[in-house]
């Protein structure tokens, strides 16, 4: 009997999940203490610290962990190098902590530069691992192409981020770092997060819904629209073209999101199991929530065409990405993937020889449900607070999101410390 599915050892994957969970807690803690700052401009030390904790510590770290787990499954081959995965974790993990601290105290000297350098090293290690795993594998797969392209965009984002950090003190770019912020941010948001979540989601969502639906044609269209939109955006930005032209990439990305929503809806309708669990419900909610940042983005472009960008709309736009759909899909997918990893660790060797708990029983569904409610109400409250400039709504929202992060971590640690309960 040969291995039918290749998996990466939990020792590689679990540390990424732990780091991400703690980063989420730190980010919501900073959000709670600094909620009032969301009434002003977005280019502030604490907001930069929160954004990078969410984007790198929370979003990127968990996606890196999940990618190391998923890539061998997608490619039907082993991960190219476990050592590179550990290197990626170590470099990125230390780098993020340094960078966030540097932003928080706004020290753009050695802490920010070392942080950026380490993050770039970690991302390169990941990129090499993805490329080599694909080169070594037996078959081609559209989801792997999504992952490879997204990893390339991530490397581009962190390289641009590193240049922006150096530009604070060395003036290596023609304009100030603030000028390039939206370029750096959108390569990361669209090229890394959106592309990767769609690619991986197109495999995981039907799989966890127990749906046989698949459509490579739709997925290739999404791939073209997202990448086409991003490349168009970069071109328009660098040519400093008129604001109205930004509607072209917005339309492309909107098309990609709509198609992805259509793909998920088809998968949902063709599911085999009627019951849909709470983890999948919040993951599907994340897909719907992808539309929200687009609404704020269009508002930003419209104000940009008339006067100057409305900072509240810019803040709401960023918030609905990092604390919105990205967080929603991570909250849902963590409790679809991590229980299986832990179940495999604890029960794999003796599976089938007695009654074992199912993966879903390794964490508390009650805690999960309370966490989901805190997340939804907290998110709505904070966004409303930004839009109407209401400090109390933001504070309440931040408190609920902090509670959500605490409950998330409590459930993750419950999973990690699960002991054999075989009957």
């Amino acid at each position: 009997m040969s291995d039918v599915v290749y998996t990466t050892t939990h020792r590689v994957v679990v540390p990424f999940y732990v780091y991400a969970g703690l980063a989420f807690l730190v980010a919501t803690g900073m959000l709670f203490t600094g909620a009032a700052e969301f009434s002003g401009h977005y280019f502030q030390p604490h907001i930069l610290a929160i954004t990078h904790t969410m984007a790198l510590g929370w979003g990127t770290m968990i996606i890196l962990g999940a990618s190391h787990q998923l890539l061998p499954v997608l490619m039907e081959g082993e991960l190219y190098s476990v050592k590179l995965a550990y290197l990626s974790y170590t470099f990125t993990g230390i780098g993020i902590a340094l960078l966030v601290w540097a932003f928080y105290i706004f020290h753009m000297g050695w802490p920010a530069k070392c942080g950026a350098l380490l993050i770039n090293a970690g991302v390169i290690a990941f990129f090499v691992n993805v490329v080599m795993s694909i080169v070594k594998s037996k078959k081609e797969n559209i989801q792997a192409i999504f992952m490879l392209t997204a990893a390339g965009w991530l490397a581009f984002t962190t390289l641009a981020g590193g240049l922006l950090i150096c530009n604070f003190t060395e003036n290596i770019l023609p304009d100030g770092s603030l000028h390039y912020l939206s370029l750096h941010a959108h390569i990361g948001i669209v090229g890394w997060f959106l592309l990767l979540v769609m690619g991986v989601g197109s495999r995981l969502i039907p799989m966890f819904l127990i749906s046989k639906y698949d459509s490579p044609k739709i997925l290739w269209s999404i791939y073209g629209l997202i990448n086409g939109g991003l490349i168009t955006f970069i071109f328009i930005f660098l040519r400093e073209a008129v604001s109205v032209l930004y509607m072209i990439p917005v339309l492309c990305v909107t098309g990609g999101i709509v198609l992805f929503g259509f793909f998920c809806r088809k998968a949902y309708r063709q599911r085999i199991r009627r019951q849909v669990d709470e983890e999948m419900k919040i993951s599907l909610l994340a897909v719907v929530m992808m539309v929200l940042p687009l609404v704020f983005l269009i508002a930003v472009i419209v104000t940009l065409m008339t006067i100057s960008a409305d900072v509240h709309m810019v803040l709401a736009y960023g918030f609905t990405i990092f604390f919105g759909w990205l967080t929603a899909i991570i909250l849902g997918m963590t409790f679809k993937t991590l229980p299986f990893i832990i179940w495999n660790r604890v029960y794999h060797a003796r599976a089938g020889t007695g009654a074992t708990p199912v993966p879903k029983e390794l964490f508390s569904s009650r805690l999960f449900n309370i966490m989901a409610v805190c997340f939804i109400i907290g998110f709505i409250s904070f966004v409303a607070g930004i839009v109407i400039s209401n400090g109390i709504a933001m504070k309440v929202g931040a408190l609920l999101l902090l509670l959500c992060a605490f409950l998330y971590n409590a459930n993750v640690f419950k999973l990690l410390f699960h002991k054999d309960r075989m009957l």
Partner: protein
Amino acid sequence: MIALTEKAIEALAALRWVFDPEIGLNVVDMGLIYELSVEEDAKKILVLMTLSTQYCPMGQSIVDSVKNRLELSYPGYEIEITVTFEPTWSMEMISAEGQEFLNR
């Protein structure tokens, strides 16, 4: 297509204790077992099975569970499992009991 010898039926009954951890349905009612034969003289059990998806990260665990369960029920027997994705598993392969379970 399952070879329905008496011994094979017994072995299949044993496999009703092996569950797909995500769905909670046993592998027999899921229709994952394509063929099963028990060679009493050679003390060998041959299983031809599939998985609901080629990308299932729990695939190896399900296959190992089948092997572990048969080793437990048939000590001294050699268990040979072959995994195939031809034909591809489809929901029509789920038994009537399984369909009822999933529609709850």
